Every structure is written in C-alpha cells, then in structure tokens.
C-alpha cells in the first residue's frame, strides 16, 4: 500500500538510480580486474614505443617488423603509419604480433 506523502514515482526513481549505480560499480569492478591481466590488445592509436614498452620488446624489432628503420623519436600511432604505407592497420598489427611472438622470452 502506498504510504501517504511519498510519491510512488519518487520511490521508483530511487530504485532505478540505485540499480544503475550497482550496474556501473560492477562494470568498474569488472574492468578493474582486467587491469591486472596485462592483456591489452594492440590498437591503432598505439605508438611503436608504447607497444615495445608494454610488451617488453626492443623497439628496433617492431620497427623492423613494419619494414621501417628504427625511429626512436617517432610517436605516430600505428594507424597513421598504416595510412602512410597504404596498408590496412590489421596487417601492421598482425606483423607486430608475429614479431613479438618470435622474440625470445628472455630478451623481454
């Protein structure tokens, strides 16, 4: 039964906002668990120095995989490198993945 003085829509709004807060907190917790997993996929916005550092691979190996000489101060994202080379970015990502996999673990 509806209590006097407390509109039903306000109680529904409270339930909805609390549920939304719960869902968002769960989402934050879920992504928080992934932070420790260290499995971030290679994305078009990433630079070669970023990928080299995060995968513990020498930069030269990755530049070589892209068919480029080592550019220590080149901060272009791989998406921009792909556009410049006229290749799909997926090709560059798979070249980089292959170079990372073939790099001996003890050198990482």
């Amino acid at each position, binding site marked *: 039964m509806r*209590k*006097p*003085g*407390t*509109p039903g829509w*306000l*109680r529904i*709004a*409270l339930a909805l*906002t*609390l549920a*939304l*807060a719960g869902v*968002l*907190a769960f*989402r*934050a917790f879920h*992504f*928080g668990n*992934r*932070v420790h997993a*260290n499995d*971030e996929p290679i*994305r*078009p*916005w*990433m*630079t070669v*120095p*970023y990928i080299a*550092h*995060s995968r513990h691979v020498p930069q030269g190996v990755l530049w070589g995989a892209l068919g480029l000489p080592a550019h220590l101060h080149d*901060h*272009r*994202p791989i*998406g*921009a490198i792909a556009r410049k080379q006229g290749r799909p970015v997926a090709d560059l990502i798979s070249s980089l993945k292959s170079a990372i996999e073939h790099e001996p673990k003890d050198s990482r």
Partner: protein
Amino acid sequence: MNLGEQLLGALAMYGLPLLCAVTIVASVGVPLPISLLLIAAGSFADHGEMNAPAVIAFATLSAVAGDNLGFAIGRWGGRRLAARISRWMGSEEKLEHAEARIRHWGGPGIFLTRWLITPLGPFVNLVSGFAGYSWLRFLIWDFLGELLWVVLYVMVGNIFSHQVEALGSVSSSATWAAVALLVSFLIAWKLYQLRRRARPA
C-alpha cells in the same frame, strides 16, 4: 576508430598542445573523454614519450582556464537565464533561496565535481557564476580539485601504464556510478523529508 581512440592517437602525435586544447573544451562542457586522455598521458610519461610534471602543470592550468570560462559565461550571460528560471520557479524569492544555498555549499560542491563527480563540473561552473559565488573562492576550490584530479589520473596511468583502455573504462564507470549514487542520495533525502512532513505531530 571511435572518438576516444582518435583522441588517443592525436595525443600520441601532438602531445601537450592537444591535451591542453581538449581539456579546456571539455571543462567548458563539451563531452570529451578527457579522463582517458589524462590516463594515457600518464602512461606515455612512463614510456618516456611525455613529461609527467609538464602534463600535470599544463593540464591543471587548462582545466582551471576552461572552468573559469564556464564561470564567466554563468556570471555575465546568466541574467536572462535567471529571469526565466525565476518565472519557472514561481518567484524571485525561491531563486534567491536557491542562490543562497549554492553560495553556502558551493566550495565542497566545486571541489567534489572537479575530481569525483566530474560530469557535473561544467554545470556547477555555470551555476556558481550565475549565483554570484565569489570568484576568488571559486578559483581556489577549482584549482585544488583540478590539481587532485589531474595528479590522480596521471599517476594511475603512470603506474598501470599498459592498460590505458581498461583504466579508461574503470574511470568512466566509477564516475557515473558516483553520479548515480549522488542522485540516489538526493532522492532518498527528498523521500525522508516528505515522510517526516506527512507524519502527524
């Protein structure tokens, strides 16, 4: 690529100038994933691609500049809006009461909307200017809150520097969860007041 990824790519290429420009625009109220960019800047600093102290200094100053722009718009462009709101609220008196409340609670509100419930920041800037809140107090609370926000996100990005996208998702979900909790609290408070008023004396 989505907007967040495009901005991350642009940040990698253009560095601090891009970060400052996006921070100013986002602080005025344009919804851009600025927390994600700060995390990325912290990560790039760990990789030697950006300089952490410079990121903290310039991002804080840019955020403060954008907030003050919003405050100025509220202060000097808000009178016509005030007339409309007072018509909507029913009387000048109610508007003055609301303005007095903002002046009273403004400081902690400004501080918390800089780093914890950031989506409300641009709105609070406008309202603070419009309500005649002291500019100097606004500047002090704003600077402290923005400094905390920037240092927090840059440090998180710096420490977990291999997980930029996951951290961006954590921060945006946690921020909106805080907003939803705040709204829940306000509704619960309103319900409590209504029930108390309805109870016989």
